[in-house]
């Protein structure tokens, strides 16, 4: 039993996730209150050097050929062993494709409490979670003895999780990884598509509010008039109205255009996070309380369909 805060580092093909640095920064805040150390937990194979810029007091490195790539089963086994033995005060996971596959299973396996979607911790160590598409925050005492926590981005700066001074890296034992039920076959590269939206300076983005596939044309027309490119949020891509290469968000691209013009996008946290680096966000939404207006610089409360054609016309005239 210790007051240490463990942070599970997420990495894919040699690249550490930004979210892991955010979690190291969160871990620091929590460790200061608890009086423990920040311990980065790195699982991999020949991947020790990934730990060199972690803002952590210590890196625990678990090396095994079967940990070279993430699979839920192997990670669960290795972490169950480590957490069971060390009993830290908390373990932070990403609320992500890696962390979320692991944290819930460990909660049941080790009979440890789990808090999900945590965005930040208060100074006295309470968790603050973001739920209901960012519309509600839930705060509470961090449960004990060891709290498992999945974290969403937004509460801390990833740069605060980086350090120029390399932390000490200690190898930790890996339990027998036998009878694994999940195996990686291969990676499938992202669809490249015709454009790379992460490099486009002017994005016309559509969300659920665009209502149907035919209406995409309205966005295309505006994009053409102004010299931009159309992209969309998850519901639009899932419906097959736009190609996957145009997806902005958690599983898609993070973008940083000069102008991000969001039409009918509510601005759920996963989407908001992916557009934060834009210079200017302009949003149109019928719901005045849509979270997109909290990240947008300019907003229009109204119906896209009343506005977009007349806007396209006026843009054409103004050229």
């Amino acid at each position: 039993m210790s007051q240490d805060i463990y942070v599970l580092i997420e990495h894919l093909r040699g690249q550490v996730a930004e979210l892991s640095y955010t979690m190291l920064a969160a871990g620091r805040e929590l460790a200061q209150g608890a009086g423990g150390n920040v311990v980065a937990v790195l699982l991999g194979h020949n991947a020790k050097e990934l730990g060199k810029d972690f803002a952590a007091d210590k890196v625990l490195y678990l090396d095994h050929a079967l940990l070279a790539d993430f699979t839920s089963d192997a990670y669960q086994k290795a972490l169950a062993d480590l957490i069971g033995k060390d009993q830290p005060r908390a373990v932070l996971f990403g609320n992500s494709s890696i962390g979320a596959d692991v944290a819930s299973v460990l909660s049941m396996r080790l009979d440890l409490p789990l808090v999900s979607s945590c965005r930040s911790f208060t100074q006295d160590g309470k968790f603050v979670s973001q739920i209901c598409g960012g519309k509600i925050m839930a705060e509470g005492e961090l449960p004990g003895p060891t709290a498992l926590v999945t974290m969403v981005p937004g509460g801390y700066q990833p740069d605060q999780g980086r350090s120029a001074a390399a932390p000490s890296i200690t190898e930790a034992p890996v339990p027998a990884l036998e009878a694994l039920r999940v195996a990686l076959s291969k990676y499938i590269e992202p669809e490249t598509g015709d454009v790379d939206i992460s490099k486009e300076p002017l994005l016309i983005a559509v969300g659920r509010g665009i209502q149907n596939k035919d209406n995409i044309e309205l966005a295309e027309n505006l994009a053409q008039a102004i010299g931009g490119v159309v992209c969309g949020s998850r519901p639009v891509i899932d419906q097959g109205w736009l190609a996957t290469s145009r997806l902005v968000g958690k599983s898609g691209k993070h973008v940083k255009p000069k102008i991000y013009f969001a039409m009918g996008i509510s601005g759920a946290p996963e989407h908001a996070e992916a557009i934060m680096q834009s210079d200017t966000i302009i949003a149109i939404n019928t719901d005045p309380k849509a979270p997109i207006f909290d990240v947008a610089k300019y907003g229009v409360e109204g119906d896209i369909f009343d506005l977009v054609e007349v806007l396209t016309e006026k843009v054409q005239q103004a050229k």
Partner: protein
Amino acid sequence: MNIIVLAKLVPDLVEELTIDPGGAALDLTFARWIINEFDDHAIEQGILLKERGGGTVTVLVPDLDGADDVLFTAAAKGADRLIKLGGDFNGVNNHALARAFAAVVKELQADLILTGVQAHDDLDGSAGPLLAECLQMPYVGYVSGVSINDGKSLLRKEYPGGLLAEMEVTTPAVLGIQAAEQPPRYVAVSKVRQAMKTSSIEEQDASSLDPCGGPTVGRMFQPEAAAHATMIAGSPDEVADKLVDLFKELGVL
């Protein structure tokens, strides 16, 4: 092949959310319950698997307002068996839900269990992986494509940036569905009505609802944004003029 789909009902975010007088929970008195959208994708994926490889699809939901609608809609899409789990599920966390589901699912001899990868009201992890561990089955989440072959499931898992991983999982397994291979199909109201006549809902009581493992919320609140957009008001014509001026100011026109 025996495919089980677990669906959760969640408050519709289109409606105004309010905090109850105790200040630590949502006031669900007037909540409109809808299917968790990822669970809708899980149902679609289940039906697609059945269409491709045969078998049956059983859909399970907790008994909340709207549960019958969800089940009959699933039946209209092609689900074979509908089970409603009885109990007081208002405000019940995922640990309790997973344990209650597990008790029922154990008896169903599932080859594959599909459920949405997450729900917007999750505060103690998500139902899928919690259930998987209760049943000692493997779990993979963020799945957007599934096939089954020879006691194994081949699936596509999503990572950030559009990267996918193809993974092989031994069955039975629990998969957290991010998106079905095609958008959830639309069914006409008339077909749902027909399903109400031709299919029946089995009711089973949850043995107990044990929330152990979830956190206790001390306070719930609506976030105050650090900043808010400068709103541009007026008729569509006026708004369009102002936006054109803004585009000029920003140097793109």
